[in-house]
């Protein structure tokens, strides 16, 4: 992958690229769905032949063994598909030793909906692809959650059997985390960040396209688990060894799905980092970047450094199963808890990967709708960095009762609790930004203010868990489930809805229906609390998590949660309806409906194919609301005098 753009900008000669839309048999040889139609099964066949051939040659019995086959299928088939779609065409061409072609931009931009269904190198198209795809996975994972709630509505194992239940929960969480929350932020980032920093595209557009296409692959792999003998992976999203290793083969679908999602997320993060470092508009110093850019910058650092640990942990599980190695087999010298250390060394930073971009979105929205500068801008940026650093030093708080080295608990408890400090800075600064503002409570702002209180509840339940003695009681109960959903739904999902409404006009060129948006907010807000607040109580009272059946004493509150969950489903329908109808028939959006200062809003809605005719000049901070005459960015063409204003900062 690293070979991406080796020769860019250094070519002297070029050859003419083949026409974009060929006819006849060439339609099957040019990158696209038609070629994928035959390369995918071909790759599948090759993988099968390879595994069976080796096993047959080596006299291993049985020749048809599902575990190695699934491994090979989930590695090779997607590669076949990507080759078919043309994701690697440029690189193959380059490998062949030809002179590099100039970019003809035939893969850039969208003129019709079809252009969203092919390899596209335009960050705006990719952004939309990301958001739509990941939101579809949200719906699927949400429906799985409804199955879960249906089972839990009453005590007793009445709707699905226990193994299927575990499969439902695992797939629900796996899809929500790896195919919704983590990548949808990459989607918003993709759309917005190049615009915000004044770049014509991401640094590596082809890699960007590849990152996107790995996602549906990851999702399909995970969903295919439902079809396997023995059922879906059912060891929770944390997939602890050794249960994961004795689980039916479906577990491989988690291990491999996560690899694709992880590779996608590393590649995107790398792209963000390089883009933000090397492609900012003139005058856009780090201290003038919008906080969303800061947030994605820190998140990307987390992704690049932490995700390999997830890959490592799942590879070791896979090797233990397929090659019968002993990484986590206690009888043979393996260290069982080692898995948890490696997993959480990724997955704790991952929870900040799932919230920091949301913090960024909220900072944008609150400043714009309060018509005030972000309070304490520099400290807001620095607190992101503090969370980044602290985030790497707290992973073992997921293991307070796991039987790990006892001395590790107290230092990890202290660092865990300290994360409240930078997070608190952010919360208080948002509140201070709103204080005495002139606030317009449009839907994004409603979600933002709802986010603050809901996330604080989730964060505070995190403080309970951070205290080792309390965690000893509360760990692995529904209290954790409540914490998870307050931070991930009340936190991340609220920011996603806020961001979706906020940039909807920019992305689609149309306004959404404000009334429906507000109804959506209030129903979501109420249903969310009805669903998840009681879980704190049942958890502390004695209901463990990941159970299909529970003691009758918890029946009433579980019924309440289930009703709330279905109401949440209904509220989601409102959102879908609003988006679908507004996208087709909404009022055309002006370029800057929110009177924001950041650069993306200075462009038409949606922006033109290459974003800018000229790169803007940044002359001030991004949130100078209420400062007379302040500008964030100017375009030469506008005739505005370019002068460096005095420093903008926290004080």
């Amino acid at each position, binding site marked *: 992958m690293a070979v991406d753009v080796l020769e860019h900008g250094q070519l002297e000669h070029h050859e003419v690229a083949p026409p974009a839309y060929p006819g006849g048999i060439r339609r099957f040889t040019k990158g696209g769905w038609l070629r994928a139609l035959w390369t995918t099964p071909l790759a599948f066949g090759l993988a099968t032949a390879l595994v069976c051939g080796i096993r047959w040659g080596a006299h291993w019995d049985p020749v048809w063994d599902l575990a190695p086959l699934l491994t090979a299928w989930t590695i090779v088939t997607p590669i076949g598909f990507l080759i078919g779609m043309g994701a690697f065409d440029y690189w193959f061409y380059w490998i062949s030793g030809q002179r590099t072609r100039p970019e003809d931009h035939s893969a850039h931009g969208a003129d019709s909906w079809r252009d969203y269904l092919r390899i596209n190198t335009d960050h705006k198209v990719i952004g939309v692809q990301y958001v739509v795809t990941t939101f579809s996975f949200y719906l699927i994972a949400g429906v799985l959650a409804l199955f879960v709630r249906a089972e839990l509505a009453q005590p007793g194992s009445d709707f699905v059997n*226990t193994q299927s239940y575990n499969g439902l929960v695992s797939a629900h969480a796996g899809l929500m985390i790896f195919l919704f929350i983590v990548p949808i932020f990459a989607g918003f980032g993709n759309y917005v960040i190049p615009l915000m920093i004044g770049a014509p595209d991401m640094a590596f557009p082809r890699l960007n396209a590849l990152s996107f296409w790995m996602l549906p692959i990851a999702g399909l792999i995970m969903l295919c688990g439902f079809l396997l003998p023995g059922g879906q992976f059912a060891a929770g999203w944390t997939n602890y060894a050794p249960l994961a290793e004795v689980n039916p083969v479906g577990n491989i679908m988690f291990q491999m799905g996560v690899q694709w999602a992880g590779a996608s997320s590393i590649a995107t993060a790398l792209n963000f980092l390089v883009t933000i470092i090397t492609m900012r508009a003139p005058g856009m110093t780090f201290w003038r970047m919008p906080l969303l850019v800061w947030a994605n910058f820190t998140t990307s650092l987390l992704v690049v450094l932490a995700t390999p640990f997830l890959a490592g942990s799942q590879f070791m599980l896979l090797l233990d199963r397929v090659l019968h190695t002993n990484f986590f087999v206690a009888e043979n010298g393996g260290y069982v808890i080692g898995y948890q250390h490696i997993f959480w060394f990724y997955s704790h930073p991952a929870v900040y990967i799932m919230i920091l971009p949301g913090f960024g979105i909220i900072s944008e929205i609150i400043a714009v709708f309060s018509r005030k500068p972000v309070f304490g801008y520099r*400290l807001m940026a620095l607190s992101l960095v503090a969370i980044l650093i602290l985030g790497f030093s707290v992973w073992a708080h997921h293991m307070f009762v796991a039987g790990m080295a006892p001395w590790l608990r107290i230092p990890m408890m202290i660092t865990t609790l300290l994360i409240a400090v930078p997070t608190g800075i952010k919360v208080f600064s948002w509140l201070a930004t709103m204080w*005495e503002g002139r606030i317009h409570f449009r839907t994004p702002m409603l979600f933002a203010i709802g986010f603050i209180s809901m996330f604080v509840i989730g964060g505070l339940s995190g403080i309970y868990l951070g205290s080792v003695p309390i965690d000893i009681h509360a760990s692995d109960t529904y209290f954790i489930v409540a914490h998870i959903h307050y931070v991930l739904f009340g936190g991340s999902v609220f920011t996603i809805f806020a961001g979706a409404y906020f940039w909807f006009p920019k992305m689609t060129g149309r306004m959404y229906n404000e009334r429906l948006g507000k109804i959506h907010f209030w129903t979501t807000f109420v249903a969310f609390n009805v669903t998840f607040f009681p879980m704190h109580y049942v958890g502390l009272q004695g209901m*463990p998590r990941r159970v299909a059946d529970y*003691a009758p004493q918890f029946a009433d509150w579980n019924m309440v949660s289930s009703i709330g969950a279905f109401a949440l489903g209904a509220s989601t329908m409102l959102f879908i309806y609003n988006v679908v109808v507004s996208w087709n028939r909404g009022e055309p959006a002006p370029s800057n409906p929110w009177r924001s200062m950041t650069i993306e809003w200075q462009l038409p809605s949606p922006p033109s194919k290459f974003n800018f005719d000229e790169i803007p000049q940044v002359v001030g901070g991004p949130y100078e609301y209420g400062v007379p005459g302040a500008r964030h960015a100017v375009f030469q063409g506008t005739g505005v005098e370019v002068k460096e204003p005095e420093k903008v900062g926290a004080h």
Partner: protein
Amino acid sequence: MRKSLIIQLLLLGVVVGAISAAVGFLIPWLPELGSTQGKRIDDIYVLTSIICLAIFTVVAAVSIYTFFKFRAKPDDYEDGAPIHGNTVLEAVWTAIPAALVTIIGVYSAVVLVKNEHVPANAPVIEVTAQQFVWSFTYPEIGVTSGILRVKEGETYELKMQSRDVIHSFWVPQWRVKQDVVPGIETTIVVTPTKTGTFPMICTELCGLGHSTMRTSAIVLSAADYDKWAEEQKSAAEAGGAESGKQVFVNAGCGGCHILADAGGAGEVGPSLDKVLPELTADQIRESIVDPNKVITPSYQPNVMPGDYGDTLSDEQLGALVDSLVSTSQKG
């Protein structure tokens, strides 16, 4: 103007604080308390609640106040005051949370150290977990049981081991929890203070029977406990060979099956009181040795351990089947 804002906010804060405090302290969030360790945990819980509810009150009050007070008219195109920050305020809201979490941290560390202190002569109970049964061995008495029995007021050290995957020991009323991990021994220190029967729950996902991996922890008064221990000891010494009933108890069958005669109270598997009368001795033996061969309708395969054929000796198995046949004939 500013002053009146602050006063209104304070009033709102009092109201929100009162509501939060009511929710936080009037609802009995924690279950009945049953151990010395639990008492300390409840104390730190209360301290943390006070801090967290205060923080929540601040955030909620400001949010609500902002929501009603700083609302702009739709046609208001003015901006707010360009306030970029305030060093004093920022220092305050960095320092106060830091101090508060330090308090929580230090107190938690103290509680942790106290809770894990094992007195020199603490009796040991060996806990073994496997999919999906618990068993408890009392080295001093020399018996194994599927139900945990302890003496009120005594500090125990539970040494726990797993035969297969990770499980986790939890008695909510005791507030103690610890994973049971293959390959290592983990321990729990607990001093039960209340007599009664409490649920003992596996809280780590351990496979398809996880939600049913439960048994009871029975806390007996000193006299009752000694009586029970005496009975067990003499029974073990008397016959040399275990009676079928003892095998039933020791192998943990009672954790999953109801059998009034042997004190089995579990509801994971079919009630043996109900199904045994319809089974022949051979069928019973087969159900124990190879439980997956015939699956009782509406139950799942792979829940009942499949290794009783190996872990029970022939005599034990014979005694077990005999006693199961005879109990069913009695009833």
